[in-house]
């Protein structure tokens, strides 16, 4: 009954994209999949192992610990950087020459290569010669990020917050600048206080940019490698061994390519899943209709 002419030439139109995506994503990803389901000793010496590597990785206690540390780290990053970035954006000047000055100062940490950041903070926090390390020890607090796990975490968090909060602040600032003045004028006429203005105007209007900020900071902090690698190398002990560091140790240090490949796929799925959850949550927060129209205090 279908009399429509069949024309497959349309595939030619999408072919270039398919080729590019194949080389940029699919083929490298398939290599990983390939390693994750086989035990490969060398060319021609590959044995099918099915989901064995996945089972092994999922049972690995050290991986569980690294995963827990990773969630703790990303959770702290979001909890500190998002509110702090919004607070900085609110405090920034809205016009005049000060705007350029503040923007340049804020953007500086974002321009530094990541491993250099680690190096800067190693020197900065060294208990013998670093400004921060010496100052805090002189203040009577023992501080040594190479020996004390808590100090290592504090240093990492300080570095991370210093490095990335400006990005959140810049995004939030862009969101604030996009609010038409009529909203503030209407709020004054309605007698709204500063808290109401923030809660009912500024925060909802920043929803879009904050969604981007949360996703970027989550993904980026969840994949963190260079900074802790340079600063602590994953130590002391394993206390700052995050997923990437553990993965590299597994793949390059021990050359366990099979488990490392299985681990990579799981890692990728976790990032994908959480990014999706955050996106959905932020898109829907405060948007559901309430059934009644009753008073609400």
């Amino acid at each position, binding site marked *: 009954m279908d009399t429509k002419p069949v024309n497959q030439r349309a595939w030619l139109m999408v072919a270039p994209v398919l080729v590019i995506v194949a080389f940029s994503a699919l083929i490298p990803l398939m290599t990983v999949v390939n390693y994750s389901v086989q035990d490969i000793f060398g060319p021609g010496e590959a044995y099918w192992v099915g989901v064995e590597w996945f089972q092994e990785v999922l049972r690995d206690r050290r991986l569980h610990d690294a995963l827990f540390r990773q969630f703790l780290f990303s959770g702290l990053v979001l909890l500190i950087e998002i509110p702090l970035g919004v607070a900085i954006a609110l405090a920034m000047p809205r016009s005049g020459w000060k705007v350029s000055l503040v923007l340049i100062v804020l953007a500086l940490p974002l321009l530094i290569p990541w491993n250099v950041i680690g190096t800067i903070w190693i020197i900065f926090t060294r208990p013998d010669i670093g400004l921060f390390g010496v100052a805090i020890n002189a203040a009577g607090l023992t501080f040594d990020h190479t020996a004390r796990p808590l100090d290592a975490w504090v240093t990492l968090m300080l570095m991370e917050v210093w490095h990335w909060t400006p990005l959140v602040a810049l995004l939030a600032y862009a969101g604030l600048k996009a609010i038409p003045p009529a*909203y503030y004028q209407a709020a004054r006429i309605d007698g709204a206080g500063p808290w109401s203005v923030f809660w*009912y105007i500024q925060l909802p209007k920043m929803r879009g940019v904050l969604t981007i900020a949360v996703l970027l900071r989550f993904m980026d902090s969840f994949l963190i490698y260079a900074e802790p690698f340079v600063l602590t190398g994953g130590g002391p002990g394993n206390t700052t061994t995050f997923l990437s560091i553990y993965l590299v140790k597994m793949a390059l240090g021990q050359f366990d390519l099979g488990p490392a490949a299985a681990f990579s796929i799981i890692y990728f799925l976790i990032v994908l899943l959480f990014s999706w959850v955050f996106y959905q949550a932020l898109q829907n927060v*405060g948007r559901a*209709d*309430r059934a009644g129209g009753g*008073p609400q205090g």
Partner: protein
Amino acid sequence: MARITLDGIAHSYLPRPRGPGDFALKPLDHVWRDGGAYALLGPSGCGKTTLLNIISGLIAPSRGRVWFGERDVTDLPTEQRNIAQVFQFPVIYDTMTVYDNLAFPLRNRGASDAELDARVREVARVLDLTGSLGRRARRLSADAKQKISLGRGLVRPDVNAILFDEPLTVIDPQLKWELRAQLKHLHKQFDFTMIYVTHDQTEALTFADAVVVMVDGEVVQMGTPEELFERPTHTFVGFFIGSPGMNILPCTVTGATAQVGAHAIPLPCRYPTLGADAGRVELGIRPEFVHLTDLPDGYPVVVRGVDDVGRHKVVKVTFAGQDLNLTAPEETVVPAVGARLSFETARLNIYRDGQLIAGTPIEREAA
């Protein structure tokens, strides 16, 4: 409710204004009668919004005082002035329901729940929003959002005046008529002072009891729509109001005769002699009061074109070397050559440097 008095108000956006050119709003005295419906009409950038924001307190004037009744409110912040303002683009609180949006100004002022609920439901009924009270405000159409903006003004029982800053800009044309009618109705019902800023003359003329025409930061005329149409006191008003605007022809005046090019035109009034040295002397006549004629004493003109606007025709002619518009009934056959026109003498106005000049009516003199 209160009379609003502007006493020598002027405003400049520059910190140290040097001359009159630096002022967005030139010195102005004006009284807005309690309960009046005013339109503030003028082209974009003429200072209308500045004036409105001075009344509501969003801008502190560079000079002058603002009085609400017997009270000087110049230094009072917006939230203490009991003024409502509706902006060009609807302002709604995205995360709130329609109900909460309407209740917001009352909650901020600490109204009791029972009082608040009664007011919100009353306003929702008047604005036809009852069915949407439980919905998120951001999901509504532009006109419903603009109604919410208006509703947040109406919900306060003590409002002195509601100021509208081109509130119908984003509304579809057919809904514009509906909302405008609703506004007029609300005005009659609640009897608050309304000041309505617009650059659309139809909106101003249909809405207001009194229209204030502004240009370049100055009020050039205030009057009823009829007054503005029939006796514009300034050539700008004549030109800005009406479609097409008033014809303005440079002339000289001797007694009761205007000389336009080679043509002597009799005037309804006698004027002091205004020769070439009297400044800019102009004859103003609306296109509606210029007619094509078959009589031999009509003034010969060259027809340049005819626009058919539906209800009538707009005929563009050249008269004494100058462009002139006139309207003619729809069925008129416009001759291609040899057209002649006549003026309704009683409708001729004489302006000097833009200002209307009062002459001495001829009939009275004869009697």
